[in-house]
């Protein structure tokens, strides 16, 4: 099911020619009707005019996505700057194309987006890769930093930290390691001091951020 939303009958007629192979319906008037149709129909794709009354993209897109999280949104608009189009994708749209797109190409867009693809212009693809690179480097830095922190722990402290990360209580840890609860608490005090954390929740976050499932201690 493809839902079309535009305040222009002419635009809708053009889009309809492109999606004639798919079950579709359209929405001419306001945002409230669009929202109720989204909830009622839960369409796979929403093709929406960037200038749809009341939309106020990109901020306004969040409301639509919350109403129907599985609906993939494609924005149709006049030519946008790279920055403006990028902000739409960051807000969660799955495609951006010209409002006056040829029906045949609109069909390609719908099919691609239905299959999980992103319909984004090539001039933005490098930006996407750059952001991915930044994210991966940040994640690696965090992982390295937490590894460095954990390297300061003794083997016993490491064991206890791992068990805290698994959600075990002091009593369970004591039983697991055949030591007293008092000893566990003493170790934890030292662990908290070395890692400069105040509680087991933060310790868990550090441990689980740093130690992969495949690693053995």
């Amino acid at each position: 099911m493809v839902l079309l939303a535009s305040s222009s009958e002419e635009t809708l007629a053009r889009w309809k020619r492109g999606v004639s192979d798919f079950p579709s319906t359209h929405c001419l008037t306001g945002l409230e009707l669009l929202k109720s149709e989204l909830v009622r129909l839960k369409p796979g794709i929403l093709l929406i005019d960037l200038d749809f009354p009341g939309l106020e993209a990109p901020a306004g897109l969040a409301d639509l996505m919350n109403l129907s999280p599985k609906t993939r949104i494609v924005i149709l608009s006049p030519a946008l700057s790279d920055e403006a189009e990028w902000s739409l994708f960051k807000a969660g749209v799955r495609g951006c194309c010209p409002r006056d797109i040829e029906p045949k190409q609109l069909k390609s867009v719908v099919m691609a987006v239905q299959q999980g693809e992103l319909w984004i212009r090539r001039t933005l693809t490098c930006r996407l890769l750059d952001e991915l690179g930044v994210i991966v480097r940040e994640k690696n830095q965090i992982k390295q930093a937490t590894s460095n922190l954990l390297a300061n722990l003794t083997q016993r402290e490491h064991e206890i930290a791992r068990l805290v990360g698994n959600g075990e209580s002091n009593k369970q840890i004591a039983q697991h390691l055949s030591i007293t609860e008092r000893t566990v608490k003493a170790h934890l005090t030292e662990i908290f001091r070395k890692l400069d954390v105040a509680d087991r929740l933060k310790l868990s976050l550090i441990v689980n951020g740093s130690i992969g499932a495949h690693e053995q201690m």
Partner: protein
Amino acid sequence: MQPVTVAIADPDPGIQTEFEHSLQGAQGIKVLTNVASSEGDVVNNRRLKPRTSISPIEDAVARVRRLNPRVLLASLNQCIDADCAMLETLRRECPETLVVLLADETVREEQVMQALASGARGCLSRESAQYDLSKAVHVVERGEAWVPRRLLGKIMDEVRHWCHESSAEVSLGSAC
């Protein structure tokens, strides 16, 4: 207009031939040489001595720097960590050289994403390379990326997820 200079970084002669065959007759592309030659390079009739006293990554980067290709073609292997280390080094040391990867069916999408995050600007399957390689070279040369749309979708999901997590951490910090 100057042709796009392309170098191939693969020790496997079969893959090198595959790349060269795919680019044969392609307009606007000049294939330099195989950067990964283990017996030294021959560039303009000068034989460059193999350098054995440095690491493979340093050696490959040195070769790329000497050849200075605009696009470097390389196959993506199962040894993803080594490949990513190479890509990161190239990104830092030879930023003007853009890397396009060829991945066979054994390479998983997550590994391709890792390679793209490390600095590759394009990736195509061995199957599609015979039709699309020259087009990919030109697209990447002009500053765009050559990545399957489906993978772009996954990358955008990752970017949005991280931004959401970062925002949540900031809120948690503020609340504390």
